[in-house]
């Protein structure tokens, strides 16, 4: 470990991180001030260790003067870990509970917020295709990190991961073979254009950008785990305002709408799989 923090200056760490987040907001407009402090601290100290930097103040100095360093840190803060059909049970519920509701629309819009490198979006597109709904929808897949959006647009993933994804696909109730939807190349696979044609990948920051209009379904999984309560409330409000009446919201397996300010604005369709429906009110 190369950072200098220990028992005698643990309080400095909190102060310096606060200053760093303020500086990032003022200079680059990315607002991490209401992200979980534990998460930020961990990522920042990780960055210090990897880059042989002793103090957060030194990092702050460098970030203000060097945009590249900011984008490196952004990668570190944004945690882009994802996979296809993570939590297979969730996709089963999606098929059983949500698909019949989408089927009542002639045309519908889906907003996939915090899509990272896109594995989840392709999972969803495949599911829609199998249910015969892909041609009737438009998927907006957004993230605030442009690097991951580039990867998502390509739809090319490591072959080494496919075995796991295939297992998840089967557990999730996939109807055919995952291999029906991609072409294998050297060490990687590329998902069909038919899937990506229905998806618009776009830069959108949940904290600082505005609502999407009239969406029928929102998926935002494992993004709000990094937010403090106040920010969770703010983003849930954004989702509420973006949804059509009776629109559906899906969260990650450890995220709930219970105990938030939005609790009374949604009905629960499946608490275990975190599927909620906007109330009419």
């Amino acid at each position, binding site marked *: 470990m190369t950072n200098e923090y220990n028992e005698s200056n643990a309080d400095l760490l909190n102060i310096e991180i606060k200053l760093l987040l303020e500086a990032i907001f003022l200079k680059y407009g990315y607002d991490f001030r209401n992200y*979980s402090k*534990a*998460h930020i601290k*961990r990522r920042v100290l990780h960055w210090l260790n990897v880059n042989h930097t002793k103090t957060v103040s030194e990092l702050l100095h460098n970030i203000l003067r060097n945009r590249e360093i900011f984008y490196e840190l952004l990668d570190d803060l944004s945690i882009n870990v994802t996979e296809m059909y993570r939590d297979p049970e969730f996709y089963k519920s999606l098929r059983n509970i949500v698909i019949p509701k989408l089927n009542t629309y002639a045309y519908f819009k889906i907003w996939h917020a915090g899509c990272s490198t896109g594995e989840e979006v392709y999972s969803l597109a495949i599911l829609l295709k199998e249910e015969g709904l892909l041609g009737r929808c438009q998927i907006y897949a957004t993230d605030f990190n442009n690097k991951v959006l580039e990867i998502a647009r390509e739809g090319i993933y490591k072959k080494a991961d496919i075995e796991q994804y295939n297992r998840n696909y089967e557990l999730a109730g996939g109807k055919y073979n995952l291999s029906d939807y991609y072409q294998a190349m050297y060490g990687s696979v590329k998902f069909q254009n038919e899937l990506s044609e229905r998806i618009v990948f776009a830069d959108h920051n949940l904290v600082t950008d505005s609502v999407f209009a009239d969406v029928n379904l929102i998926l935002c999984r*494992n993004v709000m785990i990094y937010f403090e309560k106040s920010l*969770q409330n703010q983003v849930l409000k954004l989702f509420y305002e973006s949804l059509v009446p009776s629109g559906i919201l899906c969260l990650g397996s450890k995220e709930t709408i219970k105990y938030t300010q939005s609790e009374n604005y949604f009905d629960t369709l499946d608490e275990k799989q975190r599927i909620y429906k906007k109330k009419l009110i």
Partner: protein
Amino acid sequence: MYKAIVIGTSHGGLEALKVILPGFKQGFPLPVIVVLHIGDHNNDPFIAYLNQWCNIPVKEAEINETIEPGIIYFAPPNYHLLINDTFSFTLSIEKKVNFSRPSIDVLFESAAWVYTKSLIGVILTGANSDGANGLLTIKKFGGTTIVQNPCSAIATTMPRAALKLAKPDCRLSLEEIVLKLNELAYSMK
């Protein structure tokens, strides 16, 4: 005065926890926060099981939940567990650390930053070296460090790695750990 206990263990952990956790009496003054590696399995069965044996509640830690004394919290499978300076939990799906998610290092380091010298860190039986770095961080931030004596552990890799790297304050058997934790929890240090 101490403010929290963190415990990390993997192979053989459930057996070891079955000795330690029932040793906390009702009204125990500290929260006890545990990482047990159990793969992708659901926590519910063994939490229900431990609840039958323990005198204080056992539950899975939830996002943004405020940490309360006298409760035993477990990290959910497949998520890292971290502690905020407002004494609440954060979960993360960032990549595995030491092939583990949840990782003991992740919990211990974040706990050390928040609780500094008011923290007790315990490493028990286990078959990899997760937790050694975390225990060292606890020490660096002035906390008290305890490792299960490898002679009495079902799997020795984890306690050995922690002994070697962190040079803990005590190396004890499970029964001694129960006594020590109670002594420290009620002490006025």
